[in-house]
């Protein structure tokens, strides 16, 4: 007891002695307090006080609410398991297989992250729905795609890049020497895979599963367009706030959404922290050994190929929708939708969205990697709290983030230190950043956990300061995770809908809100054209980021494929 208090005191003292820790802690604490804690506190204050408890009890006792919770769990578990499995397969093919089209497969796997998720939803409805091109016209089926099946389908496609990118970094980070050693000791391919690779990848699976689970639970766009009569928690909250004008029960329901994600997060976190996954040791690394078994090789290749074909079909059909008169009904060629989007109203939304997302990306990237570094590498009071808070932005449904921001900053806060932010660009940047930081943190944490801290210790014992070690050792080692964090946070900002749906103003228009408008009012063609242009912008930005962030350290090659 006394010992642990002493240790706490030592940790406290170390904050003042460690410059990196002090500054980093200050920056990330202020960020988390202003961007995450306070807005969520405002929502919770409205939803989880003594007066709201009877309402919570009442809602929980309703069969409707219980069904909604079940639906949410089924959909999120489905997406998290399916997405992680598929993401792993795609990443495995990239690293361990010598097959054609790998570069193409890589692009295919990250395409969904560059599009607003409900673009896929529209494509799915028009391809596989009741009047779908494939189901109705090709197979003569009137298949009802709305509901759990369609939703899991759309969400898995939408979030697969999260799983793929994080697992890709992990598999590439594995030391091939271990694999070699196993083979030299007589282990077969499957045995080595099962006893070496899988255990080493557990943090990657855990973080991928966690990311997908909370992302699937928080998604609003797909459940609005594809959920049909199936209500999940996020759409139920939307219903409560938008439809029933009931902010209170919306806040209470969002508390119900938070709890399962926090529980799962805690389990994963505890489980992951039990094992050691260090494989980057600073010793020279060898060449990754490719899979030679033709059966394994070509079966995996075929699955990957089919997946690629599906993605091409889904996105290709969006292109069709954008260039034809009425998507799925009248296939006459037209440029009307693009005229509407590029020269009509849409042009303003494009420049605004690009500007704000570009401002949010470096903030999210820097803060996220800083938090990841502190959480994995430094011991200090409140470490796990900071870790927990950094994921909240993703666990709390976007709609709630948006309303929380409005409630927190619609008037000057902190005695005028923070001015009124509603109606300004800053509040939209905040919403973008809150959502992105968690992704960067998770990627950074998973990647850092693999790197043995003895490299950093070696640097320190050779006389480098904490800052220098961070700059010269840590940053290059986690650069792949950092880059994919930057990419995903820009794409996330460009394509996120729910957090900003309440924040758009006449001066700052956001493309995704315009797309949902078009889709909801039934003009899928305009929505498709918007989506196409949005995808092009994000792809261009990714290319640019690759050029800018890329440099000459060895770690870079990990991101290139």
């Amino acid at each position, binding site marked *: 007891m006394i010992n642990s208090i002493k240790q706490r005191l030592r940790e406290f003292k170390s904050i003042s002695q460690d410059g990196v820790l002090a500054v980093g802690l200050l920056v990330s604490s202020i960020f988390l307090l202003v961007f995450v804690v306070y807005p969520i506190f405002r929502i919770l204050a409205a939803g989880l006080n003594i007066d709201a408890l009877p309402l919570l009890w009442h809602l929980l006792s309703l*069969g409707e609410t219980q069904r909604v919770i079940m639906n949410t769990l089924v959909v999120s578990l489905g997406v998290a398991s399916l997405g992680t499995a598929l993401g792993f397969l795609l990443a495995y093919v990239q690293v361990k297989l010598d097959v054609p089209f790998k570069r193409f497969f890589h692009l295919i796997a990250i395409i969904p992250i560059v599009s607003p998720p409900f673009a896929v939803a529209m494509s799915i409805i028009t391809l596989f729905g*009741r009047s779908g091109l494939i189901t109705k016209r090709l197979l003569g089926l009137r298949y009802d795609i709305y509901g759990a099946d369609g939703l899991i389908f759309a969400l898995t496609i939408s979030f697969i890049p999260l799983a793929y990118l994080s697992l890709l970094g992990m598999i590439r980070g594995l030391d091939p020497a271990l694999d070699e050693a196993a083979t030299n000791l007589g282990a077969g391919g499957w045995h080595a895979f099962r006893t070496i690779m899988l255990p080493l990848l557990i943090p990657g699976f855990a973080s991928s599963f966690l990311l997908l689970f909370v992302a699937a639970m928080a998604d609003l766009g797909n459940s609005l367009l594809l959920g049909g009569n199936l209500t999940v928690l996020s759409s139920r909250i939307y219903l409560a706030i938008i439809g029933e004008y009931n902010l209170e029960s919306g806040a209470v329901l969002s508390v119900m959404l938070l709890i399962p994600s926090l529980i799962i997060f805690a389990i994963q976190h505890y489980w992951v922290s039990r094992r050691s996954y260090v494989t980057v040791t600073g010793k020279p690394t060898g060449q990754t050994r490719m899979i030679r078994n033709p059966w394994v090789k070509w079966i995996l290749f075929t699955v990957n190929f089919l997946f690629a074909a599906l993605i091409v079909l889904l996105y290709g059909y969006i292109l069709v929708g954008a260039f034809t008169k009425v998507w799925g009904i009248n296939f006459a060629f037209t440029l009307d939708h693009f005229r509407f989007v590029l020269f009509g109203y849409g042009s303003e939304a494009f420049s605004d969205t690009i500007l704000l997302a570009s401002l949010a990306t470096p*903030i999210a990237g820097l803060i996220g990697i800083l938090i990841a570094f502190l959480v994995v590498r430094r011991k200090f009071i409140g470490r796990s709290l900071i870790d927990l808070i950094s994921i909240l932005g993703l666990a709390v449904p976007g709609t709630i983030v948006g309303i929380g921001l409005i409630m927190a900053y619609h008037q000057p806060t902190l005695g005028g230190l923070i001015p*009124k932010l*509603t109606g300004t660009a800053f509040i939209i940047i905040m919403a973008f950043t809150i959502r992105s930081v968690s992704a960067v943190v998770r990627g950074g944490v998973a990647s850092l956990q693999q790197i043995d801290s003895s490299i950093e210790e070696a640097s320190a014992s050779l006389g480098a300061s904490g800052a220098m070690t961070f700059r010269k050792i840590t940053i290059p080692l986690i650069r792949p995770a950092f880059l994919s964090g930057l990419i995903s946070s820009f794409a996330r900002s460009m394509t996120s809908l729910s957090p900003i749906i309440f924040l758009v103003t006449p001066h*700052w228009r956001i493309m995704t809100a315009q797309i949902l408008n078009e889709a909801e009012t039934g003009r899928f063609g305009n929505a498709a054209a918007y989506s196409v242009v949005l995808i092009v912008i994000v792809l261009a930005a990714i290319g640019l980021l690759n050029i800018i962030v890329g440099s000459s350290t060895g770690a870079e090659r990990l991101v290139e494929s």
Partner: protein
Amino acid sequence: MIMRRKHFFIVVLLIAGLILAACGTSDTASDQPAEVPEVEAEAATEEEPASIPEVSGPLTVMCGMQEDWCQAAVQAFEAETGIETSMVRLSSGEALARMQAEKDAPSFDVWYGGPSLGPSAAAEEGLIESYVPENSSFIPDALKDPNGVWTGIYVGALGFCSNKELLDELGAEAPNSWQDLLDPVFEGNIAIADQRTSGTAVTAGGALVALEGGEDGALGYLRKLDANIFQYTKSGSAPGRMAAAGEVAVTVIFSHDCVKFQLETGVDLAVTFPEEGTGYEIGQVSLIAGANNPEAAKAFIEWSLTAAAQEIAATVGSYQIPTNPDAEVPAEAVKLEEVVLAEGFNPGMVAELRSGDFPERFGAEVRGGEEAPEG
């Protein structure tokens, strides 16, 4: 070593400073006061000094109609008056949530379009300022709030919108009554919006309450109808797309939306009305309490009631019926006289239904499969 640590400090501070500076710039750029001088300068150069309107911009409009209509209207107003105007399109629910959240510092001046039940609900919370426009003398009494909470700018009647090709496949006629909708031939082939998200749906709910003699009767009907429903959509007009795409045969939507979908898609859609009687909506314009620019907002409201302003709708394919008797009624529009209105129905009761527990009861008793609460 100390030097290096300092060096790192400076880098961190620089980065933080850069971020703040970048945000700061975009922040001030969006500040309204910063734009005022610009507007005045424009007005001074473009207008004769004598004709400078007393009212100047900027004006911020919360618009509840379709995007293209909103734009066309705002552009026309700006061109006509020189008042710098910007707008955001929000659904009724979004608009109300936004107004509640921004109660102390509203960012909008005027609420334009969308059903009158929106401002009726908002007025109860003090979010709307009563204003009786001078031009409202043209508008029939039934189409405006006597206290000036809102004034009607258009009227739309609820009807059935059916895909003729699919009707043929089913071997059914376009429905002509609420009773027809219960025909098992339509099982899984009807779409209607959810009572909890859509003003359109509550308008149907209101008509049913009027016809069935109360909420219990209306919910009883909706429970029976539930057997035939393919999907309850969030947005009121979304079922129209589903009918056009052939996903469902019959939808319950505003007839003008059906006409619009038919013209846009070229799909053969039939507009019919229930012979028992139907509901209608009045599109509204209203003044937001605590508006930053109430004078410009009032000028906008007066303008929106003119015949010229109301005729803009037809130019963008929206065929609601204008409230100004002098405005030309488009040939495509459904004439209100041709439709049987549900006896005892008025848009006010839609507002009451919506703010009461009818949507929640629908959620629990029709969607949730709960038994009606006792008592």
